[in-house]
């Protein structure tokens, strides 16, 4: 629950109202101007309706230089951010040849595999020379190489399930798997802050979708009871099956899911659990096995475990792990397995090598060091930020920490101030977050050293003072100060 100070809420609404009014004014004058000039559509309806991209044209373009910053080096702890300039007030941005070396607090590089690694990269280059970048074929035709078979075994063993299936993209994994498992007559209950890929997969399946309050097992139980008793809408026939979809770490909140309670509720009401560990696999837990290990949940209780390799393993692709029968069924019917090109073989090799490093099977203890370092770094950074008075979300041990900004003007201000001091941060606003709750999101990596973090804290503190986002006083007694606030979910 985020409590937004009253004054801040009023000023944020006012700022958005002002921006909206100015945007409408400019649209109106543009329409008058266009009325004079000829229309060259010749009977076609316009491809982008005016109101659909109002937000993009009038609000987003003003701060476009804070997003989509190109880099010209590997996404490691320090990264070269390419400079850009604009001649037409940020509508289009052009690259310069110069780039500045910045501390990278934005990439999803939790265990530091995002750049040249002494164990992984030579193996990857070998597999590239042997198998070449792509197989040009789907997994069932000629796209399964020995590396793919080894990868699926490796992933299944790592996650703690009997079998696994791997696809080439994490987003497509959700969109292609959920329609295979459930269709019309089924019910999907998903957390209110689930990722777009889950929402799209659920919509594509044709099942009925209900939402429960973010990370609140009591509300989930209420929804389950109501829905089972009521049955399908209008016909009241019993549901064919119910799948509850939750995520391990929510990427915009940094919170860890309350898995033990949710799993016990689902067992009681005979619903299936689908866990999306996109951000948590490899990043939390003693050996990096994700939220099940951290919270002590038996993996046999979670029916379907899904995850991606982009974040902690420095590669690409997604996986689903489950029972042998489930994986066999998916291999026979999943469209991503039957029609899409298989995952690139060097990327698959990277995942295998990364898992070996994490488990210590490469003969060194780099994996254990990385895991310990990311835990230390996250906890240290979060504690320091909270001491300075920032409003930081997320649980302990989670490497994702959003810092609340709220006001739309503070979004570009914070981002540009930090970039000026050579720290690259990620800021997010509407529509990825609710309108009032804009935030800056820090992702800690195991390759950040203590000095890097201290420098980052200094720069963020300075930027925070300039933009006025230290909503809490820099003292531990935050509870009494929160008066006159309005609660927002």
């Amino acid at each position: 629950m985020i409590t937004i100070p009253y004054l801040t809420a009023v000023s944020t609404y006012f700022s958005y109202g002002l921006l909206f009014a100015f945007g409408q004014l400019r649209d109106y004058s543009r329409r008058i101007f266009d009325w004079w000039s000829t229309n060259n559509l010749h009977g076609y309806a316009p491809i982008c309706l005016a109101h659909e991209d109002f937000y993009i044209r009038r609000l987003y373009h003003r701060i476009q230089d804070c997003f989509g910053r190109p880099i010209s080096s590997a996404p490691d702890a320090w990264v070269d951010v390419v400079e850009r300039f604009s001649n037409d007030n940020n509508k289009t941005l052009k690259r310069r040849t110069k780039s500045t070396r910045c501390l990278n607090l934005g990439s999803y590089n939790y265990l530091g595999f995002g750049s040249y690694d002494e164990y992984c990269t030579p193996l990857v280059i070998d597999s590239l020379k042997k198998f070449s970048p792509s197989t040009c074929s789907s997994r069932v035709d000629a796209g399964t190489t020995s590396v793919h078979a080894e990868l699926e075994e490796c992933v299944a063993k790592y996650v703690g399930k009997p079998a696994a299936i791997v696809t080439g993209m994490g987003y497509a994994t959700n969109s292609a798997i959920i329609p295979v498992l459930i269709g019309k007559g089924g019910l999907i209950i998903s957390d209110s802050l689930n990722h777009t890929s889950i929402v799209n997969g659920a919509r594509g399946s044709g099942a009925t979708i209900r939402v429960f309050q973010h990370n609140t097992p009591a509300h989930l139980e209420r929804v389950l009871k109501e829905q089972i008793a009521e049955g399908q809408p209008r016909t009241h026939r019993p549901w064919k099956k119910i799948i509850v979809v939750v995520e391990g770490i929510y990427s915009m909140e940094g919170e860890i899911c309350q898995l033990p309670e949710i799993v016990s509720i689902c067992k009681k009401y005979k619903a299936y659990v689908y866990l999306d560990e996109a951000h948590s696999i490899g990043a939390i837990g003693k050996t990096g096995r994700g939220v099940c290990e951290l919270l002590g949940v038996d993996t046999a209780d979670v029916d379907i475990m899904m995850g991606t390799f982009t974040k902690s393993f420095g590669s690409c692709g997604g996986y689903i792990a489950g029972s042998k029968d489930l994986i066999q069924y998916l291999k026979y019917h999943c469209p991503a397995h039957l029609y899409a090109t298989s995952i690139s073989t060097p990327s698959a090799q990277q995942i295998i090598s990364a898992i070996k490093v994490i488990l210590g099977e490469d003969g060194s203890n780099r994996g254990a060091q990385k895991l310990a370092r990311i835990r230390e770094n996250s906890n240290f950074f979060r504690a320091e930020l909270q001491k300075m008075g920032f409003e930081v979300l997320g649980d302990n041990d989670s490497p994702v920490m959003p810092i609340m900004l709220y006001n739309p003007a503070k979004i570009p201000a914070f981002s540009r101030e930090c970039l000026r001091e050579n720290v690259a941060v990620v800021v997010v606003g509407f529509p990825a977050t609710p309108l009032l709750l804009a935030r800056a999101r820090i992702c800690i990596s195991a390759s950040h050293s203590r000095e890097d973090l201290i420098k980052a804290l200094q720069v963020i503190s300075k930027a925070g003072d300039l933009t006025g986002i230290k909503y809490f006083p820099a003292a531990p007694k935050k509870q009494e100060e929160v008066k006159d606030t309005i609660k927002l979910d």
Partner: protein
Amino acid sequence: MDTNLVEMCRAGLKWFTMLLDAPSARIVLFGVRIQGHIFVEVLLGFVIVFLLSQKSYKPPQRPLTEQEIDELCDEWVPEPLIPPITQDMRHEPPVLESAAGPHTTVDGKDVVNFASANYLGLIGHQKLLESCTSALEKYGVGSCGPRGFYGTIDVHIDCETRISKFLGTPDTILYSYGLSTMFSTIPCFCKRGDIIVADEGVHWGIQNGLQLSRSTIIYFKHNDMDSLRSTLEKIMTKNKRSKNLRRYIVAEAVYQNSGQIAPLDEIVKLKEKYRFRVILDESNSLGVLGRSGRGLAEHHGVPIEKIDVVTAAMGHALATEGGFCTGNARIIDYQRLSSSGYVFSASLPPYLASAAITAIDVIDQNPELLVKMKQNIALLWKGLKDIKGMSLASDPESPIVFLKLEKSSGSTKDDLLLLEKMADRALKEDSLLVVSSKKSFLDKCRLPVGIKLFVSAGHSDSDLIKASESLKRLASELLL
């Protein structure tokens, strides 16, 4: 006794009539003499009004009690998550032990590979491997972020510029997965209420995009221009409102499910007559059709500006992964913020983007690869012309050679099993790797199934002859 009762009744009646006929009998209201019966009628009127104003009878609402809800929850038995596994679901695909070039190794044996869409033979090309190696050493494998959050690497921007230059379009946007290109692009431009006319043979990615867009979808017969014309005619005349809606025609350049080539010049003529926009999927025609490999537009001599949106997956002729969409600047700019597969997903690994740039350079500099591939297709057609039990259903110029079953057994499942057996025997007995059609239950395409061969410029003449001999033998054994 009787007389007492009668007396009482008579007295009561007399009293009653006296009451009625008493003073009111002398009142004259509005020229009407008020008599006793008026009172009865007024009373009846009140009764009628009272009855009409009563609400109709509803059975009382009785929401379920907690105990009843608990009982229902205990009684409910869900279906199992997956139906029971049958024997045909346990079929294992062949596992390759070397690169998927024209010749590959399966189970230690050398096998001729017609199952990879490696049309120009770029798998294993030296220049591609060199550029990938240098990209891997510089950037690592993954890009660790979506395009909006430091996942944009300069190779992505270079790749987009190179593709735009190659195809002659203003701008390009790069996607990280071939299949997601179509199902992210279509929902961007088509919303509820818009009209889409699509070919019935489009592949699953496009079908999923159409379903996610929630627009009105009308299918026309596979690659049949008369059917398309009549469909467009019907839409534009019957539906008056359709003039203000966005209208699209969706087609593939070379259909993955049948190997046919779309007649783009006729589609463009129809589109201009009825004012539709065209979305074209050029996955299997990029680098293959046209004099210099620029795709279907060059093949038919149509200027590329007439096609509004062109998408393609790069996992075919370009021997890399990912996909792209190209068109005019407004369309591409809009996708950078509204296309869900671009915004909410990590970007393409940088070494694959640099592989794409090198592949396009190789295509530009080596036009003889296209000539060789076209010769190979012609040779394979000659060899398979008189195969028994199957017929060539694809276009003579398409790199996907599709042999459809002439006589179907009636059930698609049995056909698929038969084709699978044929492909397995081809692999085991003749060391030939071909593709038998596979269908997911989510795929709505109902085109005939068969055996597919992907012809590559790297195949030698002996490979092609071996393939045709082997398939002819197996067809005569298994299908007759």
